[in-house]
């Protein structure tokens, strides 16, 4: 059964039921609609939240986590066109091996590997806070993850284009594949939004979406019935010239304008654009009435770093979490924040917004959020798991001043529930472990782009299971390709 856009619309209208997903979903499986089975997923009533930190542009993760032992470090440095030196090797991308007091600020040991020849790594010198959190056991790294249609090796890659996702190395497509946790085709649905579909039944204040974005529209938080609520990092501000909250109690020019605006927003619109605009605006007004006074009453004890755009986003997330827990709005929430400018084709090692500056921003923001979730403040460290996504790592080999698009990458998970202090690099497929970083090693490409050993859906499904989505049916619905992979839970949380 196949529907063009128009006939599908007609079909839905004939059902008399455009808004209610359940009935239509059962009849239109190709829409990847979920129906009611997921909506009834029941979870423990203890509050839990996921916070997705998306690093747009492709974080050069091979400079975030680097082998420390001489053998692997030398391979790394050679592949990165040598250690960066502003005078003698300005094109090199390699980080210097930490020495002296820097060792304590950068060095980590993989708790999943008892072999001292292979378990030593160092983090980028801009991330001492992450070194500390890793060593305290709150931070984990998931190594060489990326979008896959199934676990493969280089020979599989070379044998058929059906063995790997389409449009590899394209920002937009790899971003979608990470946010969908599905690389077989483009979908309008993200895995966070579909988790929201499944989990929203347990939330008591249903006007507030289980998915909240502080970083604008994103595919990650879109589900069948879930559309993210979008809030700015500055919080909520009044709507000028009308009533805040709406309506006003007395009669004034503002109340007259307010009534007129609300009447216009409440009209039924034949046109999709007008209808979507009005419903979005209306929802914003309804939520403003509730959240604005609530957020005004929330104070945080933790100071977030100034001039840190990610910190500002995580600060409003922390307030929303505190408010949601205090008011019992929800038992499950999924947040989305971002940090951009990782597409460092040039100026990666030097300049105002180089990789070091970005990782400083990242590390300080995450550290403040962790502190804020601590017992002296929001007190929800074990209830909240923060994790990163980024579309790809980058070429190990330099292009002269930066790196180009790669594939498999490294992500971070942070939280009291995280089994930290460890690297997770075994997804049960043919490629495991921290990759051999020699250019043209068996499972990487000539410029050091890695074939992933872990599929995005394995990473995502691990987090979804922590949120309470454990039934095989639900997991298979949200992650249709999960069955292709060796394990559906990487165990890091």
């Amino acid at each position, binding site marked *: 059964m196949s529907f063009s*856009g128009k006939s*599908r*619309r007609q079909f*839905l209208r004939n059902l008399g039921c455009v808004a209610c997903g359940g009935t239509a979903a059962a009849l239109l499986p190709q829409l990847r609609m979920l129906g009611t089975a997921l909506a009834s997923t029941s979870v423990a009533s203890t509050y839990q939240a996921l916070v997705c930190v998306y690093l*747009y542009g492709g974080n050069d993760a091979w400079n975030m986590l680097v082998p420390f032992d001489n053998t692997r470090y030398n391979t790394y440095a050679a592949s990165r*066109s040598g250690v960066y030196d502003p005078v003698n090797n300005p*094109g090199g991308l390699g980080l210097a091996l930490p020495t002296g007091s820097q060792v304590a600020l950068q060095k980590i040991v993989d708790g999943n590997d008892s072999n001292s020849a292979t378990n030593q790594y160092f983090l980028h010198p801009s991330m001492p806070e992450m070194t500390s959190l890793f060593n305290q056991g709150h931070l984990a790294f998931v190594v060489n993850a990326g979008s896959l249609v199934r676990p493969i090796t280089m020979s599989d890659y070379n044998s058929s284009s059906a063995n790997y996702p389409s*449009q*590899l*190395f*394209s*920002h*937009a*497509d790899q971003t979608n594949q990470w946010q969908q946790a599905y690389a077989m085709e483009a979908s309008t649905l993200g895995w966070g*939004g579909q988790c929201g579909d499944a989990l929203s039944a347990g939330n008591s204040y249903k006007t507030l979406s289980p998915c909240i974005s502080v970083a*604008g*529209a994103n595919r990650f938080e*879109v*589900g069948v019935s879930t*559309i993210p609520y*979008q*809030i*700015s990092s500055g919080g909520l*501000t009044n709507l*000028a*010239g009308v009533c805040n909250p709406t309506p006003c109690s007395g009669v004034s020019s503002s109340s*007259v*304008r307010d*009534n*007129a*605006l609300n009447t*216009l927003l409440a*009209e*039924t*619109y*034949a*046109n999709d*654009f007008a*209808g*979507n*605009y009005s419903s*979005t*605006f209306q*929802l*914003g007004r309804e*939520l*403003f009435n509730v959240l604005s006074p609530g957020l005004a009453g929330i104070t945080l004890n933790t100071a977030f770093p100034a001039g840190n755009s990610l910190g500002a986003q995580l600060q409003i997330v922390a307030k929303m979490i505190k408010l949601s827990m205090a008011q019992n709005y929800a038992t499950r929430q999924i947040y989305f924040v971002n940090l951009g*400018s990782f*597409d460092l*084709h*040039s100026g990666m090692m030097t300049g105002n917004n180089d990789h070091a500056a970005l990782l400083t921003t990242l590390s300080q923001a995450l550290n403040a959020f962790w502190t804020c979730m601590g017992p002296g403040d929001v007190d929800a460290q074990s209830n909240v798991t923060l994790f990163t996504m980024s579309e790809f790592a980058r070429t190990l*080999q*330099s*292009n*002269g*001043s*930066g790196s*180009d*698009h790669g594939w498999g990458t490294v992500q971070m998970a942070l939280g009291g529930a995280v089994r930290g202090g460890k690297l997770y690099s075994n997804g049960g497929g043919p490629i495991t472990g921290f990759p051999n970083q020699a250019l043209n090693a068996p499972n990487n*490409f000539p410029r050091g782009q890695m074939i992933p050993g872990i599929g995005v859906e394995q990473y995502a499904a691990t987090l979804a299971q922590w949120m309470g989505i454990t039934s095989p049916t639900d997991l298979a619905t949200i992650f249709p390709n999960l069955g292709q992979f060796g394990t559906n839970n990487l165990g890091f949380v």
Partner: protein
Amino acid sequence: MQTCVKTMLCVLALCFAPLADATVHDQLFRGSFDIPADQPASTAAAARFLTQATFGPTQGDVAYLMAQGYGEWIAEQLAKPATLGEPTIEAIANARTTGGQSVTNTIRLNRFFWQAVYAPDQLRQRMAYELSQIFVVSDQASDIGNNYMVPLSQYQDMLAKSAFLPYAQLLLNVTDHPMMGRYLNAFRNVKATFVGGVQTTSPDENYAREVMQLFSIGLIMRNPDFSPVIQNGTTVPTYDQNVITQTAKVFTGFTWSDAPTNPPTFNGGGLTFAAQYAPMACWGTELFPASSNQMRHDISVKTVLGDGGASTTSSIAANQTCAQDVTDELAIIATHPNVAPFISRQLIQRFVESNPSSAYIARITIVFNTPGNDLGDVIAAILTDPEAENPPPLCGSANCDSYGKLREPVLRLTELWRAFNAQAPAPDQYGQIAMIGGGGFLGSFGQAPLESPTVFNFYLPDYQQPGVFADNGLYSPELQITNESTTYSTADTYYGFTAKAYQGMASPPTDRPLIDLSSLTANANNPAAMVTTLDADLFYGGMSAAMQSTLTGMLTNLSGASAQEKAWSAIYVAMLSPEFATQR
């Protein structure tokens, strides 16, 4: 431009042979034969057309279009020279620098909006603005920022000057521009380096990828109506990673036009504004022998994009000059069959509707691909297509209609200014005319000219808002920046340009234009008449009866307010309305 006029007339529904030279016709018959054959059916139709084609209708432009007819109006607009921003911006920057004042992108944005509201070459300016959303460069990149504000403003001028040229010429001008070079890293991109026979670096792939993915052909093969080509049940990629790596070699060797060659200083130059916007020099064999280590262009053979047909790749010969390599590469790209549907569909989305029919795209593809035609012919065909001119009748129930598009927040503001004869402040002591008030618009609107957060523009042409759009396979680009937060921040910005910025108010601001409320205050005691004026000025007569009733009631209930408050209240609430947010 003759070609433009000819083609444009041929796509007009009402064209006929004796009008082929419309200019002569008008000069001969003006006064005795006033009504052009392709006169808009009504002033409302004229205002609607001008909403699509300009930064907003004015009463003067509506009258002029009624007198000229579509064909003559478009022909005149295509012929108008570009109003330029850079000379003024450079003078302001120099004066401010001399005066010890900061130089930031506020200067550029003020000038952009001044041109949008007051420049006579409206269609060219609008085209340049929409092209800037396809061929994206941005001051949000640290490689541009405030430091290159002046040459960035010349990029906008380049788009205006190139707006009606053949596509291939536009693509060359974009590729050669140092701001594009800095934005997508062709600037100072160099050939592979080797140490002891081992390759240690490769050319930067950024421009090679995006020039194909975003500026020309996209990721998958397309039919002339933009539908994907399907082979063996699946889409067909236009290129693979190997083609990207190879194409990256083409875009090597670029630097500032004034980088000294004697002695050679590849990283030098860029010493004047003129040098910062002149087409980049390329240090290929045209400047240095291949054996010289100053020769930065990669002269090896390149296996690049195919012809989109039988040949999946083609070859650029070794040992060519840089200029020849770039010419060859851009010719391969520009003649690829995807270009016409890929670019035409986006232009339709920017000017007319988010979801053009396949037939509409196919009609524009034919115009695009007609030998001798240029982008002037393309935009004329887009604006005079029956699907642009004749919206389907509005149906009666919720979500039964997907025609049109959401108006860009930037355009809603310019439409306000043009509809209500906004009067800009006098130039300040540095020659700057303030337009944008205290802050930029990127935060509040989610968009501002040449300020995209990424090369993917403020919204994607393929963005599908969850719900009715996604469920029906429909696209809604501008909804990507429309959310609970931006509806508020956009409204608050409009408040500052209506309630807080009108002529005759006490203590008016000096950092933005003042709108003229007189057409509304003249009928301050006649709410219905005020609404009729508003309907004509902002809604081209399309305001629904329900909305008219709501606004009439609001004005009646504001009986105690001043005439000015009634007027700005009507405008402000109308600007927030779902009907004004939509261009249909």
